[in-house]
């Protein structure tokens, strides 16, 4: 009984933590993710949780469709490259009043952690927390700069978990690796200038690098494509040695740039979604509805399965209680007869056996509950580090858990009923 309930409580806690973690991380500080056409789930996994492989990229010029005419001109002047009508407002600029669009580029790793290339507005504009009202704060250092005098484009900010696990501090150097943590490591180093305070979001487990530096890494410029076949054109030999000298580094031009996703906060997100989704290459996804959709598709069936598991545990426990009490009835017939001889009524012995069955069920259940929660509480630092979900011994992350003890009382009564009836029918005169 204790083992069954303990396991159920543990699995329920894990399910609850996943649920809470997903919901908590749905408060991402933006209400739309724009990415390349493909799986919307993958886009959310990528952009919010930094999981799964990134889908295709979008052109940087498409990202600039979220800018006003002035900003497009300004950006064009700064970056250079081919851009049609830089002075016109972007196609989605009208939806962006009071909002923001932050680009992210994924695909590289720092150690085993995802590298997220973005600009400094990521930490300036985004907020987190249950009510999305907490600004990102640094436990050490500062936000990276677009271009700093000291480190040029090559500055990095580390999530709290990354810094802790990799034992990195301000001034340390990190290198991004290509594709996976065991992939080719880019020679160019980024200097750690800031370490984030723990937020309980996936950002704790990401290394943020300045996208201007990211673009300058080997093979990070968008390949030139053949206009007829759509295939990448062969690249010219890469001469990165001089390029990577920060003093001489030049920004990658607009037409060589790509983004993996654009994180958008807009008061007109719903209106913006339709025209974006009409394009043949981009999609706009609401992270909140996508996450809740994920919960319904993946988590709810698991929760139902857990509920069934709980019921099965209860049924198996009931049978084991019934068998153990029933088997002991022969040995206890004389005790029951003695109690009857001392004046106990049939109802009293019936109640005694039912209480005993309930006590076994509830004590076993409580023992299991305590065990399950103790294990969850012991794993608390690890879970908090990975999901941001705080766990205390008494935390209940899965509401159905509250039904365990009342269910066990019913289980105890049902399990005790047959032995109790045997006790009720004990023939005192024959048993003394």
């Amino acid at each position: 009984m204790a083992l069954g309930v303990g396991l159920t409580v543990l699995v329920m806690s894990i399910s609850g933590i996943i649920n809470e973690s997903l919901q908590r991380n749905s408060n991402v500080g933006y209400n739309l993710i724009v990415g390349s056409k493909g799986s919307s789930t993958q886009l959310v996994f990528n952009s919010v949780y930094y999981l799964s492989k990134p889908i295709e990229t979008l052109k940087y010029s498409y990202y600039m469709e979220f800018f006003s005419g002035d900003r497009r001109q300004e950006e064009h002047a700064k970056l250079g490259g081919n851009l049609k009508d830089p002075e016109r407002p972007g196609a989605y600029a009208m939806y962006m009043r009071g909002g923001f669009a932050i680009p992210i580029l994924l695909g590289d790793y720092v150690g085993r952690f995802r590298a997220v290339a973005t600009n400094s507005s990521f930490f300036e504009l985004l907020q987190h927390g249950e009510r999305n009202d907490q600004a990102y704060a640094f436990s050490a250092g500062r936000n990276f700069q677009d271009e700093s005098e000291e480190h040029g484009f090559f500055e990095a900010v580390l999530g709290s978990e990354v810094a802790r696990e990799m034992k990195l501090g301000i001034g340390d150097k990190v290198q991004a690796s290509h594709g996976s943590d065991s992939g080719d490591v880019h020679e160019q180093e980024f200097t750690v200038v800031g370490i984030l305070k723990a937020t309980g979001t996936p950002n704790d487990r990401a290394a943020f690098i300045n996208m201007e530096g990211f673009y300058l890494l080997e093979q990070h410029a968008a390949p030139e494509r053949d206009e007829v076949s759509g295939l990448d054109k062969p690249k010219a030999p890469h001469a990165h040695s001089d390029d990577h000298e920060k003093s001489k580094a030049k920004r990658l031009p607009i037409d060589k740039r790509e983004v993996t996703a654009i994180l958008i906060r807009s008061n007109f997100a719903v209106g913006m979604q339709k025209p974006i989704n009409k394009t043949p290459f981009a999609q706009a996804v609401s992270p909140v509805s996508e996450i809740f959709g994920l919960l319904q598709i993946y988590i709810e069936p698991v929760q139902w399965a857990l509920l069934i598991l709980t019921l099965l545990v209860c049924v198996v426990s009931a049978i084991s209680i019934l068998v153990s009490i029933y088997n002991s009835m022969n040995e206890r017939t004389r005790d029951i007869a003695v109690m009857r001889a001392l004046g106990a009524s049939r109802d009293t012995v019936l109640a005694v056996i039912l209480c005993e069955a309930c006590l076994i069920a509830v004590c076993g259940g409580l023992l299991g509950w305590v065990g399950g929660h103790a294990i969850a509480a012991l794993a608390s630092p690890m879970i908090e580090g990975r999901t941001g979900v705080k766990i205390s011994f008494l935390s209940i992350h899965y509401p159905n858990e509250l039904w365990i003890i009342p269910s066990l009382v019913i289980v105890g009564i049902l399990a005790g009923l047959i032995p109790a009836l045997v006790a009720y029918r004990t023939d005192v005169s024959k048993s003394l």
Partner: protein
Amino acid sequence: MKPESYDGENGHSMLKIKGLRKSYPQPSGGRVLILDIPQFEMPAAEQLVLRGESGSGKTTLLQIISGISLADEGSISIDSIELSKLSEAARDRLRAAKIGFVFQTFNLLPAFTALENVRLGMTFGRGKYNLERARELLNKVGLDDRMHYRPSQLSVGQQQRVAVARALANQPRLLLADEPTANVDPANQQKIIDLLREVCRLESVALLLVTHSDLIAQQFERVERLDQINIASQPSTVTT
């Protein structure tokens, strides 16, 4: 519990049996008459020995007197309460309130301590739950230093003394003792009898003691032989 006709004054009958008949079915379909007692009476606070051979129906009689079993016919009243008119639950309550039982095999609950076994004796009577009395009784039977011992940690004589204390725990009016010394070594037999008689005298409890022993029987002023009061002592088959 007390009926309107209740007469609690000293001197009245504690146990009155009239026309009691009890038979048991036989595999052949007939019934064996075990008890046929036209008249039997026992005053309050009397100490009486009932003698009888094995299989003579002594235990059956005690079970009928205590309300555990029902007679086929006749009337049995305990402290002026007619048992045959009571429901089973009411008989249970009467037993819890007025009758104490000392068994031949002690029948202590093995998982309970001596004190808990004595407390069990007062658990089912109304308003008589009194821890101090349980301690006092164990003190009376000389087990004040063994209160927290389980039966397996006590000698046979000590176990029977716990059983005596338990039988008196509910302040009964009638104590039924079924061969209380049969399983006790000779050295302890007399101690148990002395103890039973003494505490019954102190508590004004009527004692009906069933025994084989001449040695014990001759110590009592009144000794009844079951084969004399039970006219069914020569078993005969009664077809029903």
